[in-house]
């Protein structure tokens, strides 16, 4: 019985190895003006920045992937997984790549179901993904992400972060000069983030903002049907305008120095109100809580 179990394990292990028998290990020379573009349908992708002027691609791919193609041009290097023609179904098309890129090059990634992790890239990052999750941990320039169902996690700094999703969630824990997120049903979670300008629009998702650090910031956060939970540090100098057409607004009046109430809007102020926040909902709930600093 024990031997049978060992044999089965070896057998399945062999199947697994044969299904991933295609390996890739290639180094490409690059210059800083070349964008590194990667197009992968399924699997996983790890992009890591290094100090060399080379792109090192290593990994393996499943049997229905015809090849990994490299297309080098003066301003672009394309790394693409080509799928075999006339497939009955799109199974065994996964690619598992680890790509080392110069940190000074722009990165452009197109994924379908593949997951992606980007670390240490200092220039512009652009990712489109249907349903693969995206993790970025970099001090990059501009980041632009478009996804349908993929979840996005951002750490580190970026000048402009622009995220668009249909159902994908956003977890932002990094500093941005400008943060723009547009989603239909994705949840947005901003934690411990320093921002100058925020522009968020959501139709149905939940928005939670906790421990946001303001710096004479301007923020517009609109959630048509979903809720907004806004936790602000107690010491923050801020003025908040709240517009609720048919929704609910929950605030503790004692937390603020000034409160003006109009028919369907509030204006509340703490300190001199250096940062300005505009919150709006149609039928959702807006709750503002002042956080006591526990540091």
């Amino acid at each position, binding site marked *: 019985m024990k031997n049978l179990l060992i044999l089965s394990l070896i057998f399945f292990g062999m199947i697994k190895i044969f299904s991933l028998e295609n390996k890739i290990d290639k180094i490409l020379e690059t210059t800083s003006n070349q964008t590194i573009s990667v197009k992968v349908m399924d699997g996983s992708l790890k992009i890591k920045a290094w100090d060399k002027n080379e792109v090192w691609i290593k990994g393996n791919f499943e049997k229905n992937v015809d090849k990994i193609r490299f297309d080098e041009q003066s301003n672009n290097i394309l790394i693409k997984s080509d799928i075999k023609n006339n497939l009955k179904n799109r199974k065994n098309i996964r690619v598992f790549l680890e790509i080392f890129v110069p940190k000074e090059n722009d990165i452009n990634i197109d994924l379908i179901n593949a997951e992606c992790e980007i670390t240490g890239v200092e220039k512009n990052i652009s990712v489109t993904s249907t349903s693969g999750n995206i993790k970025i941990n970099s001090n990059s320039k501009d980041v632009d992400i478009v996804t349908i169902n993929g979840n996005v996690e951002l750490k580190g700094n970026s000048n402009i972060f622009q995220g668009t999703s249909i159902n994908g969630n956003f977890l932002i824990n990094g500093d941005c000069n400008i943060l723009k997120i547009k989603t*239909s049903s994705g949840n947005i979670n901003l934690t411990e983030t320093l921002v100058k300008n925020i522009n968020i629009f959501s139709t149905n998702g939940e928005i939670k903002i906790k421990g946001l650090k303001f710096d004479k910031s301007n923020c517009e956060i609109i959630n048509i049907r979903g809720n907004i939970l806004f936790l602000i540090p107690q010491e923050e100098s801020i003025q908040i305008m709240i517009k609720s057409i048919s929704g609910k607004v929950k605030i503790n009046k004692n937390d603020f120095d000034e409160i003006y109430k109009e028919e369907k809007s509030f204006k509340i102020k703490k300190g001199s109100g250096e940062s300005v926040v505009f919150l709006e909902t*149609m039928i959702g709930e807006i709750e503002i809580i002042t956080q006591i600093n526990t540091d």
Partner: protein
Amino acid sequence: MNESDKKLIEMYKTLPKKIKPPKDLWDQIDKRLTNKFSLKDSIAYFFNNFKDLILTKKYVFAYSLIGICVISFGLLFFFNVSNQNKPDTQYALAEKELQDIVLDYEKARSKIIKLIKDKKEFFSDETIVSIQTNMSLMDETIKEIKIALKNDPNNYELLASLTKVYFEETNLLFKTSNLMKNYDN
């Protein structure tokens, strides 16, 4: 002014007021010296001397013209801005903006429906369901605001919200369709 001039002026002041000079050196100066203002005379004088005015006082004329133009444009701009801030004008502008954006929304929507059909093989069932569900949710949201607007037709805030929703959702759909059409073998 010397001493003899001063004496002459003093002598002239002592003369009775009914005595007038028989011939003016400047035609009709007596009329101009009287305090009575005559619009008819002024207009007549203006037209009689129009040519001189243009030729001799052309700089004054040019600057006056520029001044009039600046003031007119200023007033025009002021009234235009004031009109834009009026709720009625704002409402009309928002309505116009809305009409334009509704067409774009419909276009983006149709594009995605076509892409789902054409490129179905690239997307999982879950992805397709997610897109379709969210498109229905977008439509439902728009419908809800439209109903609220129907009940309160002069509510500018609602109209602005509807325009904003259309605008943002159209952008979202266009970006999604660009992502979807990007896929091939």
